[in-house]
């Protein structure tokens, strides 16, 4: 990671930092408080209003998706006597031709899609970080083998690969998550490897090695924490691409499958009715965009906060 640029002067030994109570003299050397790296990152992030707003909206969406179904009067499987009614007080998002309440359907779809997206991000990040760290740290044959394999996966459209793999399974959400997460791991692996390659040449890693630190220790104590910023930003953006990948796969018919539902399944079912019963198509789509958009903004804010060199001078 790049060192944060601090406007405060480097502290010098033996100088009091605040007002000296004995003399009442103002200490002039430090007019800017010395902050820890975490505090600085937090400050930078909190100033990014769009990112903070996005985080709040995203958390509300998650709450909505997981708590909502328990509070709402209809289950997503409930068949109500109202067929194909437009949005009303009773059915805020309307109903489909079978009488399913779309609000309950969207709640369930959102829940499934968020579950898949978060799992994809988790699997890809953990897998990719391991992949990249091992590859970058050992270099040589291991690195070559792991990276060539990553290249192979990256040469094939991952949507096609995911569809081919998912074709053989029933559409349960965790299988979709494992497949899509696994296919996203090489991306993360490549990024992390690049980081590791540059960090491993730094003096402090050499110093640790000279002191007899084991490979595992160096990896866990020096390499992983330093690649942290990049990994966190990537993980956030993976949630956004994850939800898009899940819905795309479901749209083609190889992701989550009815009777279970996801936002992608809802759009697939609603696409034929886009001109006649638009609520079936627009509501699930708007929720996908909302999730992906907030997560993308969040990732952008995190990148700014964790990598201050890019946006040093804000107007």
């Amino acid at each position: 990671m790049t060192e944060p640029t601090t406007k405060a002067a480097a502290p010098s030994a033996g100088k009091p930092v605040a007002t000296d109570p004995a003399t009442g003299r103002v200490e002039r050397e430090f007019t800017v408080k010395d902050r820890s790296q975490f505090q600085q990152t937090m400050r930078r992030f909190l100033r990014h209003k769009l990112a903070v707003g996005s985080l709040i909206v995203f958390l509300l969406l998650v709450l909505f998706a997981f708590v909502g179904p328990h509070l709402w009067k209809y289950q997503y499987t409930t068949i109500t006597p109202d067929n194909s009614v437009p949005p009303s007080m009773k059915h805020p998002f309307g109903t489909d031709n079978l009488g399913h309440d779309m609000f309950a359907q969207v709640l369930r779809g959102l829940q499934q899609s968020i579950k898949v997206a978060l799992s994809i991000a988790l699997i890809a990040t953990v897998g990719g970080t391991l992949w990249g760290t091992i590859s970058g740290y050992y270099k040589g044959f291991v690195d070559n083998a792991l990276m060539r394999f990553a290249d192979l996966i990256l040469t094939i459209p991952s949507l096609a690969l995911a569809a081919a793999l998912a074709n053989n399974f029933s559409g349960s959400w965790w299988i979709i998550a494992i497949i899509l997460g696994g296919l996203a791991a090489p991306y993360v692996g490549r990024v992390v490897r690049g980081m590791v390659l540059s960090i491993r040449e730094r003096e402090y890693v050499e110093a640790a090695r000279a002191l007899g630190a084991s490979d595992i220790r160096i990896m866990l104590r020096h390499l992983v924490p330093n690649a942290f910023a990049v990994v966190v930003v990537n993980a956030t953006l993976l949630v956004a691409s994850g939800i898009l990948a899940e819905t795309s796969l479901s749209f083609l018919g190889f992701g989550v499958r009815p009777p279970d539902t996801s936002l992608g399944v809802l759009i697939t079912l609603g696409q034929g009715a886009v001109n006649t019963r638009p609520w079936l198509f627009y509501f699930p789509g708007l929720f996908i965009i909302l999730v992906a958009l907030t997560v993308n903004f969040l990732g952008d804010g995190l990148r700014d906060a964790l990598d201050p060199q890019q946006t040093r001078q804000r107007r």
Partner: protein
Amino acid sequence: MTVKTNIQLGRSESDPDVLLEVENLTVSFPTDDGVVNAVRGVSYQLRRGEAMGIVGESGSGKSVSSLAVMGLLPKSARVSGSIRFQGESLLGKSENQYAEIRGNKISMIFQDPLTSLNPVYTVGYQLAEAVLAHNDVSKQGAHDRAVELLRLVGIPFPEQRVSNYPHEMSGGMRQRVVIAIAMANNPDVIIADEPTTALDVTVQAQVLEALEAARAETGAALVLITHDLGVIAGHAERICVMYAGKLVEVGSIDDIFYRPRMPYALGLLGSLPRLDSSSKQRLTPITGAPPSLVNLPAGCPFTPRCPLAQDVCEENEPNLVATDSSAHLAACHFHEKLVGVSARQLFSTTSADPDLIDSADQEVAQ
């Protein structure tokens, strides 16, 4: 020069020798922590053919004040005061109006030669570009001039080197190319911002030689920015010492080196290893660090590090005033107390050396 009186202003306007006149220049940057006052009221004049040095620690505002002259500050910078070149005000010029002066009348050499040149073009192309920007010559003519310029700055085999890419050259050679670009249009002023700092000591001399060659060829006035007093001593006639965004002492080489009147300048000299003094003398560091330029309190910014500090230093920031001559100015309430004082008397050495304590005591006692 910096005391703003009507008499001095009147004189400078009528003086055809004054090329560049900076008056009460302030530059500030809004940042996350508040406004950074990088330059706080700097005034100086540069005469035709003159070589002036600006010394100071990093962050003292010496680079920023020069970038302001070139109009190359980032958009977020707030600049006020006046910068005049041959009587013409530079501040407020549009980017393209400024472009006619840059590289043509005033040119600049930057610190890091490894990143200063564009990696995707040959050095010949980049040199010719500078020539073509201000002259109505053919491409062949510009190319020939590029070869000639490379020869002038001492690059061997310039006919072949002209088609090299920057990455095919060493750091010292690249800096000489940058110097060649700076002299391409026979400018009146060359500003060199730490031209040797990023280079090996062995290469520094060659680069300074190239700089001298450029001056000799163009007759340009030089503003040499550095933190290296050794470089200044050999290449400048006049020195401005900068601290915390202000000039704190101005004078000739002899004034500053032998009769400094500001504790900071004195401290700088004390931290410089010298061959002409006895080998037993220790270097005297200035303890502490320069102040942050955000929310600078009233008073002299050097107060916390100054051994002479009194209550008045906390309250009033001293102005530059004439000392032993009208050309030697210092900004210190107690500049008179510094007459004949050596750095070792004012600042303590880092660690006590038993052999030296006695003699040092004797010296103070005298």
